[in-house]
């Protein structure tokens, strides 16, 4: 058996975190000494219990917060629209239609709907909601709202998409479906994803790298490689390979939480 190919090690760097930390109110350490190298095309999961600083890491990367220590360096100039974000809630504007919601990132850059109509419809098509462009969010199911949220995050074709436990509030059947679709989408638009989750299974299925984190203080424990090739079919979920990675990640997580596996 040949060693698995590791294409990510040769891809250009997109973003680098150097011993980044965040302290609140002078004494609450939310994150300590986090280093991470993000390469173009990576699908990185931040996996850990509540309070491990994974959401803080996302807020630091998206520049909603400034690090108390360390630095975050982007390769090349950063422009608005280079970043897409998906929150745990769909976070749609209830007064706007699906298409208007997806238009938002363009609209805030001063682009008229007519000039980006094709991009908006293309994004909706990629998440399978082109027929719902004129619906209001309240008419959609939870899974569909999340699809709109994903369409909004990728409509500008950003270099990096940050996802903060986007599927945590969905039922498992919907979550599996969205996991599959997310991988397809990522391949289609070729972006980089940093994905926060507390589900071992989700992180193994989706990512090529899993950053396992621990709480109090929030910190990185270890980094795991998931070398299974993309595209990953539904059958990957029941494969022996998947079970092995899941085991590995679970052990790391237990260690992170200070328990014996």
């Amino acid at each position, binding site marked *: 058996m040949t060693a698995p190919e590791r294409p990510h090690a040769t891809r250009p760097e997109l973003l680098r975190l150097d011993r980044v930390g965040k302290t609140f109110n002078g004494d609450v350490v939310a994150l300590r000494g986090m280093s991470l190298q993000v390469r173009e095309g990576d699908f990185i999961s931040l996996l850990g219990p509540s309070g491990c600083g994974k959401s803080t890491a996302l807020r630091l990367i998206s520049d*909603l917060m400034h690090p108390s220590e360390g630095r975050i360096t982007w390769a090349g100039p950063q422009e*608005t629209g280079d970043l897409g974000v998906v929150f745990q809630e769909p*976070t749609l504007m*209830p007064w706007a239609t699906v298409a208007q919601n997806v238009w938002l990132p363009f609209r805030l850059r001063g682009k008229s709907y007519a000039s980006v109509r094709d991009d908006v419809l293309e994004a909706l098509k990629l998440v399978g909601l082109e027929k719902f462009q004129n619906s209001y969010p*309240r008419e959609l199911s939870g899974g569909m709202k999340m699809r709109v949220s994903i369409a909004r995050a990728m409509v500008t074709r950003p270099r990096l998409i940050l996802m903060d436990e986007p599927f945590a509030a969905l039922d498992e059947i919907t979550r599996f479906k969205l996991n599959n679709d997310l991988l397809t989408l990522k391949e289609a638009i070729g972006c980089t994803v940093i994905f926060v989750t507390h589900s071992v299974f989700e992180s193994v299925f989706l990512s090529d790298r899993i950053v396992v984190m621990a709480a109090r203080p929030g910190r990185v424990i270890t980094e795991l490689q998931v070398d299974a090739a993309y595209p990953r079919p539904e059958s990957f979920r029941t494969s022996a390979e998947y079970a092995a990675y899941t085991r590995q990640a679970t052990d790391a997580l237990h260690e992170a939480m200070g328990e014996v596996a």
Partner: protein
Amino acid sequence: MSIADSTETTMEPDADEIARQRRKRVETFGKWLLPAVVLVLMLVIWDRIVVWNEIPHYILPGPGLVFETLIKDWAMLFEALLVTVQITLMALAVAVIGGVGLAVLFTQSRLVEMSFYPYAVILQVTPIVAIAPLIFIYVDSRIAGLLLCAWLVAFFPVLSNTTLGLNSADHNLRDLFRIYGASRWQTLRFLQLPSALPYFLGGLRIAGGLSLIGAVVAEYVAGTGGLKSGLAFRILEAGYRLNIPRMFAALILIAGTGVIIFAGLSFLSHMLLRKWHESALKRDH
């Protein structure tokens, strides 16, 4: 296909379904019929009390006489009604402009809010009847005085509700706007103002009733100064002449105006929110 079919088949309605339909019938029927029955009952009782006790009309007129007066004095009362409605609507318009304007200013600058909010509260809690005489001493124009009084009463609910609404925009959406580099104006226009709309409309409905109250109270205080008189002055005047039926007729017109303003603003609110807001959602079960 089987799912679609099963919902299409006509099944015997179960107990819940029957109860639900019955509630719905009672609801639609009772909403109009019951108040109407109460109204007729009250009118009959009123009429009988007057007739059986032989109460003279300068103490308590019967409903028939009030109605006759309403028709007989219609020309004069209607003219007065127009004056009162005019003041009320102008005050409401100024309350909306002032209330929303101040609210936007407050949310744009915390310093402005901290400086002026206490005084907005003081203006609101001081009874308008106590302020009105002073206003008419310093303000020459009677119309301006009336407007100022009505505005003082009406602007606060618009201000406080709109401020609350502007501040209640979803936090994740705010973050999203920041990430996308939205300007202050964009955040206000695309996020805060739409978020505030339901709150503003709630405040507007209260302000509608209050501006009528403000207009009437101010008229009582101001009296008539050469200008056309409104309904409140007509009530005062009829009171001096012991023309009780006309007082009732004018009162009915004021109450009716209040109801129409409230209904109009409720309708406006429904039309603006029906597509997206929870308050306009119809629930069948």
